[in-house]
Every structure is written in structure tokens, then in C-alpha cells.
């Protein structure tokens, strides 16, 4: 199937109108970031704690919020996570209050970060304790929260198979194997919801199961992940992230300058800025979390955006060699038309891949794939309607014609 053969669209005809559209888009985006509040910073950059929990039964977010608020976590962020069926919830708490940190001794002393860090650990424990009150009352030795070593020790204590009497070490080994099997069975879904699931673990005999049922419990939720980032690390990552984006932009400009002419380098760079700002605005509006993976997405967007522009400019360079006297707008038009089917096809396949990731790739990568999905569309648009017009504008302002215009005026 061959489409878009020998198109003759006059893209540059409406370039002024589209530049206005682009400027408006950028302005809206910048406003979106600042007016909408700020970006939803993840703990990577803002610091704080994040717990991922899986519940036995569908948890009510409002109820969880109530529990945390009464435990003093008014600013906790609670959101559903993962697929609907798995009852997963993510709880984010910001860094301990600033006053608390300010009270720490002399700012230069290492003591400051110490206080802040240990408090993150405490706060995680407090969050869990607040939930325990509602979901784990009367729970003894929670199988959904214990490690295999602790379970092995518990089994040695209970000694359902009566092997401890036979001699110390063999019993310890025996129960360690059983405990490891039980925990491995739990890891399949992250949580036990019934004793049948415990029974399915390899090496769990009827007597062991019986002892576990009598002496341990299946708590209401399991802790799937716990992360905390201190203020110092968060600050460092922030600096490094900004630096990476800025440096890669400079790197692009230098490469474009080296490979093409400055006017094309400037055009491509303006297009990249346009893409990053527009997508950032949409990102803020959608309230996706801004984290390390987001930085990766934006840097990739930078690469993709330039990539798309480069292919057009590469053709421009080729056409300019053939027809030197042709006006730049004509060359641009011709080049864009010649590469049009490639532009659309590549954008299309990339969009199919990242679109699949956006829909099927899970919550962790949703922000990432959003940036790239939107970025591909915006990047394709900007190659035609931002990069090219700016190359023309640069030519008009600083090119050889402009020089002769100035000379005429001066004379």
C-alpha cells in the first residue's frame, strides 16, 4: 500500500498562522504548570515515603484517608494502583514537616539529615500502625507481613511435626524449607487471601497447616513495596535531572550545528523546547507523577523530536545542493512533502508501540508512555510547523538576503 505519493502540499504557506498556534500552545502549557499548582512531584525528587499495599478485600480510599488523617497524616496522598482486581493502593507521605527539620542543630552538621531520615522510617511505621488498627485487629503473627526467617523461627517454636525433639539443627532446616515454600507461595500474588492458598505451598502438611491456622493469622493487607527518599538525595536527583536535560539540549544543538547550518540547529532546538513545554503542560494537567522515569521519558522525547526534524533537514540539505537558487520556503516545502510518508509511518509505528505501553503497560509506566505518546504527535507537528518556520525566520533575520537588504537600506 502506497499512500501520500508525490504530494504537493504548501506547508509553508500557513507557517505564520501555525507559529501563532504553537506560541499559544506553549503559553497555555506554561500556565498549566504554574496555575494548576505545581507538578505532582514523586518522592524521587521531593523526598518522602511511598508504600504499596495489597489488600485482601477492596479497600475504600476514603476510609483509608480517614484513618491516616486521624493518625496525623493530613497530607498523605492515597491512590489506587495497578489493575482494578488486585486491590492495590499506593500511599505517599511527604517529608516530615519542615519545622521538625529546622529544629535540628546547626545546618552544616551532619545531624540534620540524620534526623530527617530516621523520621521517614518512623513515619512509615506510623502509617502502617494506623491501618493495622482497622485491618489487623486481633491478628497474631501476620503471615502476610512476615519474612521466611521469622516464620521458620515461629514454626520451630510451634513444632507441629514434633521434629525439634529429634535434634536441633535438622528441625531448623526442616522448618526453614517449609517456611520458604510458604513465603514463595505468598509471593505469587503478594498476599494470602485464604488458607487454601497456604495449603497449596509445597511441603505444607495437614499438621503444619493446622498449627498455622491456630497460631498465625492472614492479615488484611500485605506490604508490596516500601520506598523512602531523604531530602538530600531528592535534592541531588533534582539537580542531576535538570542538568541532564539541559546538557542533552546543548549536545543536540552542537551536533546540529556541526552537521547542518546554524539556522537549522536553531530551528530544531526551538522545536524541541516547544515539544518539551507543551507535553510538560499536558503532563501537569493530567496530574501524572513527576519522577525519575519521567525525566527519562522527556530526554527520549528530546531525542525523538530532533530525530524527526533531522530527517526533514537532511532532505533540505540534499535539495539545496541540487537547486541552489531556490527560495528556502520552496525547498522546505519540497523536502517536507518528500519525507511526508516516512514521517507519518514512523510516527505511526512509534505511536503504536508506546500506545500499547500506555494502555497495557501498567501504572508504573503510564506517565512515561503518556509523555512519549503525546510527544510523538507533538514532535511530528513541530518538525513541520515549528522547526521549519524558525529556520525560515532565522534566514530572514540573519541570512544572506537579510544582509543584502540591510546594505540596500544603508545605501
Amino acid at each position, binding site marked *: *500500500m*502506497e499512500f501520500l505519493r*508525490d504530494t504537493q502540499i504548501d506547508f509553508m504557506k500557513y507557517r505564520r498562522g501555525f507559529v501563532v498556534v504553537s506560541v499559544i500552545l506553549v503559553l497555555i502549557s506554561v500556565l498549566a504548570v504554574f496555575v494548576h499548582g505545581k507538578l505532582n512531584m514523586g518522592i524521587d525528587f521531593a523526598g518522602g515515603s511511598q508504600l504499596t499495599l495489597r489488600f485482601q478485600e477492596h479497600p475504600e480510599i476514603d476510609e483509608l484517608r480517614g484513618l491516616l488523617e486521624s493518625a496525623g497524616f493530613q497530607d498523605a496522598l492515597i491512590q489506587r494502583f495497578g489493575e482494578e482486581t*488486585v486491590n492495590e493502593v499506593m500511599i505517599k507521605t511527604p517529608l516530615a514537616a519542615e519545622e521538625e527539620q529546622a529544629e535540628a542543630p546547626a545546618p552544616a552538621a*551532619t545531624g540534620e*539529615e*540524620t534526623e530527617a531520615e*530516621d523520621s*521517614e522510617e518512623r513515619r512509615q511505621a506510623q502509617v502502617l500502625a494506623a491501618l493495622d488498627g482497622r485491618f489487623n485487629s486481633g491478628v497474631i503473627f501476620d503471615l502476610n507481613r512476615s*519474612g*521466611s526467617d*521469622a516464620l521458620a*523461627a515461629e514454626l520451630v517454636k510451634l513444632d507441629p511435626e514434633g521434629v525439634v525433639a529429634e535434634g536441633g539443627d535438622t528441625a*531448623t532446616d526442616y522448618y526453614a524449607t517449609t517456611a520458604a515454600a510458604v513465603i514463595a507461595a505468598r*509471593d505469587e*500474588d*503478594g498476599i494470602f487471601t485464604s488458607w487454601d492458598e497456604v495449603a497449596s505451598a509445597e511441603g505444607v502438611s495437614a499438621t503444619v497447616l493446622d498449627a498455622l491456622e491456630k497460631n498465625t493469622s492472614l492479615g488484611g493487607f500485605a*506490604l*508490596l*513495596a*516500601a520506598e*523512602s*527518599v*531523604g531530602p*538530600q*538525595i531528592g535534592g541531588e536527583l533534582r539537580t542531576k*535531572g535538570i*542538568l*541532564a536535560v539541559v*546538557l542533552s539540549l546543548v*549536545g*543536540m544543538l552542537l*551536533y546540529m550545528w556541526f552537521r547542518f547550518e546554524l539556522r537549522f540547529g536553531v530551528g530544531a532546538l526551538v522545536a524541541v523546547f516547544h515539544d518539551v513545554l507543551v507535553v510538560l503542560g499536558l503532563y501537569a494537567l493530567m496530574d501524572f507523577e513527576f519522577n*525519575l*522515569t519521567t*525525566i*527519562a521519558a522527556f*530526554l*527520549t522525547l528530546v*531525542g525523538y523530536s*530532533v*530525530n524527526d526534524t*533531522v*530527517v526533514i533537514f537532511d*532532505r533540505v540539505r*540534499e535539495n539545496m545542493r541540487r537547486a541552489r537558487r531556490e527560495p528556502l520556503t520552496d525547498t522546505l516545502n519540497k523536502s517536507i512533502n518528500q519525507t511526508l510518508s516516512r514521517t507519518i*509511518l*514512523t510516527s505511526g*509505528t*512509534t505511536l*503504536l*508501540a*508506546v500506545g*500499547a*505501553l500506555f494502555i*497495557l503497560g*501498567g501504572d*508504573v*509506566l503510564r506517565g*512515561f508512555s503518556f509523555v512519549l505518546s503525546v510527544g510523538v504527535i507533538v514532535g511530528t507537528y513541530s518538525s513541520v510547523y515549528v522547526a521549519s518556520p524558525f529556520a525560515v525566520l532565522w534566514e530572514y533575520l540573519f541570512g544572506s538576503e537579510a544582509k543584502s537588504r540591510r546594505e540596500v537600506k544603508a545605501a
Partner: protein
Amino acid sequence: MNRSLLWRGVLITTIVGILAFSAYPPDENLKLGLDLRGGMHLVLKVKTADALRSETETDMERAVRLLEDEDVTGVQARRTTETTFELTGVPGDRGETLADIADNYLARWHWSRDGDRVLFEMRDGFEQETRHLAVNQAIQTIRNRIDAFGVTEPVITAQQDKERIVVQLPGVDDPERVKKLIKNTAFLEFRIVEFPETGSGAASRDDIVAHYGGQIPDNVQVLSQDIRNTETGELVGEFYWAVQATGTVTGRDLKNSRPGRGQFQEPVVNFSMNPEGADKFGKLTGDNVGRLMAIILDGKVVSAPRINSRITDSGIIEGGFTQEEVQDLVTTLRSGALPAGLDYLEERTVGPSLGQDSIDQGLRAGLIGGALVVLTMLTVYKRSGINAVLALSLNVILVFGSLAYFGATLTLPGIAGIILTIGMAVDANVLVFERIREELHKGRTVKSAIANGFDKARSSIFDANITTLIAALFLFQFGTGPIRGFAVTLSVGILSSIFTALFVSRWLFDLVTSRRGRIEKLSI
């Protein structure tokens, strides 16, 4: 032509074969990041100030002792900061003795007189060395403890300039225990109890203060002991003890320790002393028969048994421990005490089930995304599309193969990078195919259209991919774990897509068109 075809075919098969072989089977040869397989990532700060403090105190005591050896008595010593101390009460006529000792035995210190006071300040070189050593020792200690704990493939690295240690432990299922094990300074001391002399500690600190008439003397220190329910191990209260402020026997004097069983089959720690420790321990216990001896771990009393007779080389530590705690205590005692305290700056623990979900979702998105791309290419380029699809499949094999071959780690963002590569890799093919079409429209023969198409697309392909490569490079530079994984898959994907598009795909075209003399039509 045929020889060239053969030669290129052999080369392609070799490269693909080696990489495919190193990645197969994937679940054994692909190194998964902590975010996919589950595990702990910790960044710890070594509180090197602790080490400085202890060096300062050691040398301060040494200075006093050296002065005493020269019959200069009654000198008061006081540590003023982490790296300074001062002596007061050195008689004016003994200035020479002091200068002699300071210059010969305390050369690592800069000293000066200020009236009655003698100020000592740690020299920069010594301070740097102490800090450096503290980080190295901390790493060694942590490594010993982790090894004893039996974690497979732990990665422990230092960021010496920031006095930080990064610990990565795959597949840990009890993070709390590991964190405690790492952080325990495990500083063990034996000190004689001053009050109460009965079997159990005082119920409150006030009782002890009252015993001393409201003022606790300088040579006594009040320490607490946790009281726990013997059945559940739950914390139910605290005892307080007044113990001698200085102890002579510490964990450094131990030769060995191992788990054991006490009188009632309860878990205890058996320990034995090294020769020097045995001497000191013999003196301590021999001088204090009938009194209580507090066993203190990290500033908390764990038990206070009565000394029934002089003990020299071995003993037991009991403290209502669980089996697990005994095991951990033995591990920490054997690995030695940490030279300085540790703080957690960053901590990420991911359970294996969450990682598995991510892998499943990534795999599904990749398969469906890939299928859509394949369908598009076949629709648009017909039989030449097969060529692109072959190149794409090779590309995926090459990416996984290179990851396995170079031992790079696959992370969740890395999976995203591969999926992105699937979408972007066909770009190089598209650029070539579009050029071939253009050449065909100009009326060229199939063979020359193919040759021209590849030639003309080459510069676009390089330029376009190098820009993305620049971005990936900066990402790698910036990268912490998962992001670096993304940068790696993206870079590898770009490089292999250039290879498959320019080399493999060209070879396929040449292979197909070489069969017949003149080809009238190309399905593109």
C-alpha cells in the same frame, strides 16, 4: 557477488548466534533489576564524625596516660569538638615534658598553649585518613554481615567522596531484619553494676537518682534495659541500671561467638575471649565476685548476671533473645563493630510479586505493540515488509542478547526502552524503503533502485539516530539504577537498528534479487 553474499550471511549469523546463545534461556541469563525481581536498594551515610570522636578520645586518654608516666598528675582532659581536645592543669614547669610528648607521641595533632590550657587539634591529613578508613571499615563490616546472612549476589559499593555506601540486595524477604542487621553498630561492653545490687533493675530512672541523693556521680552512667514478654517477645517496659561509666572489656576483645542454648533451652550467645581480652576479663570479674556485671549492647543493657567466680576465657550472653536475634547478634559480633553509625538516606524495597506484575504487563504491551507494528509494515510494504519484520525480530534478539552478553541489568524502564525501540527501529527501514520507492518511480531498475535507496538513506539514518543516542548518553550519565537500564536498552536498540537496517536488510534484498538475472518488479 555470491561470495560477498555468503560472507555477509556468515557474519550476520555469527553475531546473531553469539548474542542469541548468550541470552538463552532468558530467565537464567538476563540480569533483572531490583524493581523487577524484588529486593532492597539502600543508600547509607557513614557518620564519620563518630570515628573522629572516638579517635580524639583515644588520643586524649593516651596523652593523659603518657603525662602520668612522666609523673605529671592531676591533668584534666576534655574533648571540645569532634576533632579537638584540651588539657588543663599541666604545671608551668613541666612545659618541656608536654612538648616532648606532644611532638613525639601525638604527631598527628597540632597543639598550642593558651594560658593554662593546652589545645590539641587534629591535623587535616589525619582527619581525612580517619574518615576514609571509617567508610572502608563500614563497607567491610556490612559485607561480612550480609555474607553471613546469605543474600545471593549482593552489590555493596562506596561513594567515598560523599561518605556514602550503596547496598543492593536482590530477593530479600524480611527487609526490617536486614536493615537492623546492617545498622547495628554492635558495640558490646561489659561493665560492673553500681546500683541496684539485686537481681533486677530499677523500675525508673528516678529511683536511681534518689539512691544517689539527687545527683548522679560522674563515674556512674544510667542505662536502660528493655523488658519483653517471654512468650511473644513484645516490649512491655524498661528497667534502669546504674553502671560504671567506663568499661575496659568490649566486643573487640572477643575471639569468637556462636549461638547456643541456656539452662532452660532458651537461645543464648556463647562467646570466648582472645588472650588479651581474657586477661582483662579475668581482672574485671576476679575483682568483682558477687557483684552484677552488665552486658551492654549499643548502649542498652541486655542482661546483668551475677559474677559467681573469676571468668577468663569464655561466657554466655543471655537476654531473653529469640532464635533469630541470637543469630543476628552472633553475626554482628563476628563481623566486628561498625566504626561509625549509619543513616539511611534512601531506601527502596520492592517485593517480588510487584516486579512480576510489571514483567507481565511489559511483556503483554511489547507483544501487542510489536504485532501492530509488524502488521503495519506488512500492509504498507507488502513483501518488502517481511524484510523489515525480519530486521525487527533480529533487533529484539540483538537487544536481549547484548544485555546478557555485557551483563547489563534489565529494569522496568529498560523494558519500556525495548518497546520504544520496537516502534522506532523500523524508522531506519522506512527511510530506506521510501527511498527505494522514489528511485523506482524515477524509472530505475530494481537493483539500482535498491543500491541508490540504501546509499541515499544512509546519512539520514545516521543523523537521526545519533541525536537519540546523544540523549541516551546523557541519561546514562545521569542515571541511577532503573534509568540507567533504560539508557542502556535505548542505546543498544539504536545501534542494533542501524545494523539491522543497513546491513541485514540490505543483505536480505541482495539475497532475494541475486537469484534471477533481471527483476522486473519489487514488492514494496
